């Protein structure tokens, strides 16, 4: 089988965590960017999109949609989902917590400007007082190098990706969370992740006004 093919627009959105996970797993992938409403329509008319939505990833003869389903498949295939149900459930809990905060960050650029300040304040509060505190506690509780099972899992990848976004928003938010900072450094130094973090990789930059406008046109929102 060929490399996985990712169908999405040329930006982070809901595909970025999939890119991170594939990269961390050392899996090379191709991307077909949706650059116009016609591109998206073509995929829809092809019957390639189960619910008429992207992300869609062609992998192992399947056309997978729904980012969580895609992530679950990749994590399982590449042994990043723990060794049993108990590890899996912890990974799921941490992943969902990360996703909740990630969702707030992802939708921030779409917030109307009159609501933006309030939203940023809320995000910062949640980051420090709800999420980072919970994850720091996990690391402290077992003193291990990874969040679950004393080995690398998707939870670590999703966590570190989020830490980079938090840092982009306000680097001072990470102060007071030394174990998370250490995790970030450690994961960033893993060869596959290190490569992905370098310029020229398939990692996508933050959304700017131009990119938002383009996405609005393509996805008609």
């Amino acid at each position, binding site marked *: 089988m060929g490399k996985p093919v990712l169908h999405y627009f040329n930006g982070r959105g809901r595909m970025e965590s999939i890119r991170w996970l594939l990269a961390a797993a050392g899996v090379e992938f191709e991307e077909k960017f949706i650059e116009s409403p016609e591109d998206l329509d073509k995929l829809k008319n092809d019957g390639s999109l189960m619910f008429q939505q992207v992300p869609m990833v062609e992998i192992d003869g399947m056309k997978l949609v*729904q980012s969580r389903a895609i992530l679950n498949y990749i994590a399982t295939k590449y042994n990043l989902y723990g060794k049993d*149900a*108990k590890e899996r459930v912890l990974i*799921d809990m941490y992943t*969902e917590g990360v996703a909740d905060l990630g969702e707030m960050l992802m939708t921030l650029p779409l917030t109307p400007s009159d609501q933006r300040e309030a939203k940023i304040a809320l995000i910062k509060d949640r980051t420090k007082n709800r999420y980072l505190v919970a994850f720091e506690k996990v690391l402290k509780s077992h003193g291990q190098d990874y969040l679950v099972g004393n080995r690398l899992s998707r939870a670590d990848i999703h966590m570190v990706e989020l830490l980079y976004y938090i840092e982009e928003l306000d680097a001072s938010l990470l102060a007071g969370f030394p174990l998370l900072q250490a995790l970030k450094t450690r994961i960033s130094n893993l060869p596959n992740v290190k490569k992905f973090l370098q310029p020229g990789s398939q990692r996508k930059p933050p959304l700017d006004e131009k990119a938002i406008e383009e996405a609005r046109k393509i996805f008609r929102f």
Partner: protein
Amino acid sequence: MCFHSPGSSSSARVTVAVFPGLFSGWDSGSALAHCQLKKDSSGAGLCPVPLFLGSKSLSPAHTPSNRGHGPPTYPEACGNIWNSFDEEFLETQEQLKKLQEEGHLMFQQVPMVEMDGMKLVQTRCILHYIADKHHLFGKNLKERTMIDMYVEGTLDLLETLIMHPFLKPADQKKDLVAMAHKAIALYFPVFEKVLRCSGENFLVGNQLSLADVILLQTILAMEERIPTVLSAFPYLQDYTSRLSEIPTIKRFLEPGSKKKPPPDEQYVKTVYEVFLS
């Protein structure tokens, strides 16, 4: 308050700590996420509605950023091993604060389900764990992935249902139309086709899975609002009837079970009072 289902003899005790309020995972400055309010069908008071909601935030037009998720108690109902669980209802903010301060809620949110020595939070996580444990997640990775896709798609639809009662009355009619359109144009055709092409009684692998449970919940909840929503989908109609006859599900659909009734005005009012006052 702790509710025990009659004749519960299982060794597993599932305590579902939910807010007596709408399970809407709101995240406003002062609000607590995930509460659910329902009037007890006997009018005896408020009881929790462990319902799953989708985990997407609403568009920025809705503030605070909302998310809702709720597992239907269907997975528990389908478990052949046990279909009884305890429910601990949160009825005051103080109770919830206590749970938070005592560190029972990883992200300070409910639902929380105590089972197998763990305090599980996050709807999808809880659903997956239960599904795994009770063989509702397919036989292999491919089936599991199909189930995942169907569940995620259905949850997107279910989420609009969950948020619906919280819209302004003036917006509700329009929302209902949009919801019906989404169901009829986007989601139901997918599942109708799956059933039609496979000729099987279930969505995946010819056996009951989480996908069927979530879809059944969603269909029944939609029918409460839009009774004719399945009129163009004969296979889904059959499917709904057949699933409803499965003994554990049938029991859950009967009056007096732990299935919660549809949201009403009182429920919405109480949510606002409990969370946003």
